[in-house]
């Protein structure tokens, strides 16, 4: 692979992976801090 292709691939894929993991972890942490709300179904 050429350097430019390799750098582009690594930068893009690592960035996308890092952002995805960051938001997922943030979501999971927020979920764990949430108090349970109403029952699952209502009528």
């Amino acid at each position, binding site marked *: 692979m050429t350097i430019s292709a390799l750098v582009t691939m690594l930068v893009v894929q690592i960035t*996308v992976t890092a*952002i*995805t993991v960051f938001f997922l972890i943030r979501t999971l942490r927020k*979920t764990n801090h949430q108090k349970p709300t109403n029952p699952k179904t209502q009528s």
Partner: protein
Amino acid sequence: MINNTPVQFWGSRIGLILAMAGNAVGLGNFLRFPVQAIENGGGAFIIPYLISFLFMGLPLLWVEWSMGRFGARKGNHNTPFIFDSMGKGWWIYAGVLGIFINIGMAAYYVYIESWTLAYTWYSLTGSFDFLTRDEVAQFFDAYVDIGPGLVNLPLAAIGFFLVTLALNTWILSYGLEGGIEKVSKICMPLLLVFGALLAIRAVTLDAGELGTVYDASVGMNYLWEPRFDSLWSPGVWLAAAGQVFFTLSLGMGSIICYASYMRSRQDIALNAMSAGWINEFVEVVLGASIIIPITVGYMGLDWVVENAGFMMGFKTLPYLFEQWGPILSPLAGLFWFGLLFFAGITSSLAMGTPFMAFMQDEFQWSIKKSALLFGALVGLLALSCILFYQQGVFDEFDYWTGTVLLVVLAFLEIVLFVRVFGIEKGWDEITRHADIRIPSFYKHIIRYVTPVFIGVVLLGSFISPENNNWIVAVSGLFSGEPWPFAPDSVISRIFHLHLTDDGWFIDGQVTRLFIIDMTRLLLLGIFLGLAVMARQAVKRRAAKPLPEETNFEKEDML
């Protein structure tokens, strides 16, 4: 009207995110994105792609999620009445598009999904063993019964389709938490595992290994080498915006419908980010690392540049996997077609929800009954796609419901949200109960940039020139040449500019033109039928109005 159907909610936050991500992750992540990238500037494609994601994709995700949650607060889970709650008048009929698009898409999408199920089966049972590359390609033609006749009668394909449709209907009949959410929690992790295993195998293929001719790096190099000159082409930008659009399942109405089953105090900002970025990970990291390095490794760069397309996954990959030996070959087939099946089913389930929500909300149908009606409707419509596959019916469904109308509905959504509902109220809705702070400049992006972005994509789809070459087309105008409409531009499609048939009948035989026109009439009929049902629902509501305060609003005050 008082709704006696129990109100459904997502069972867990992670279930909601996986279902939303499953809705977005589809076959296009693996089959469309890499082809778009190699055709539109390689590594440089990612620049317009990410810009489109940040300025059009993400904002529209937030808009759709918030429309759903807002509509639910008024007791609505279907797009016609969610639209109606945000803007009175004819907006209810714009919302009908949110049901129509999903029914139309499901009719052909479930058929494709059934191919992946069939190919998983055929891979495991060794049906591709010892076939040549041409024979594997012919295997597909035989599977969908391509031949000289007017009607295709693929019995095996119909069988696999019925199994797939029954599976979808069965899952849908268990509702959100017991059906869709459970399936998403199983399918999405499996999809990631299958995708990761295949990607690792694909990018580490060396020339000579398992019969390959070239290193995987040749394919990866072509895919990622930035050809910056391509960024001057408007066609590349339109292709990137279009890819972002389709990959996130925007403009379908299914995101709005899914979001309408959130609890009123649930976050939108972070959830939408998580679901959106999972889709990006699957597309940019996994999707880009499977089909291109494998096919280039065996077939060479020239062949891939010449033949790259959606069907490569079905007509070529089984032959290439066959070269991996008796143990790895069925496993690779299982992983590839299995992941496509998981990507497909999590999307097709989302297509069922808007119609079911409409029937439950407005006609008090049970979940099971509305799932059965959806299954029957899709089954009937899909028959036309299956039996007249070769005559362009399948393609016609895909073009109108799966391509053009998505952009139309998204444009209507953003106009409704920004202009009619009002950006101030809209921004409040997006940021309400948010777990992250969305930068305030996004308010201006949603107000000014996103509508322009979608408007340009919409205009582009109407007049796109041949080979997506806008510079040649515009310069041709100055030298007096007519605008060279591409065969897939809306104008070209509407006026049949690229069809050679002169009429509906030739020598007493129906032509392709006739079948295509009848397909359009059928689609129009379905839309009008749904619009009449929406009108009926308005009358029913007028007779028995909703209580002032819905369950959802009560919950919001807690």
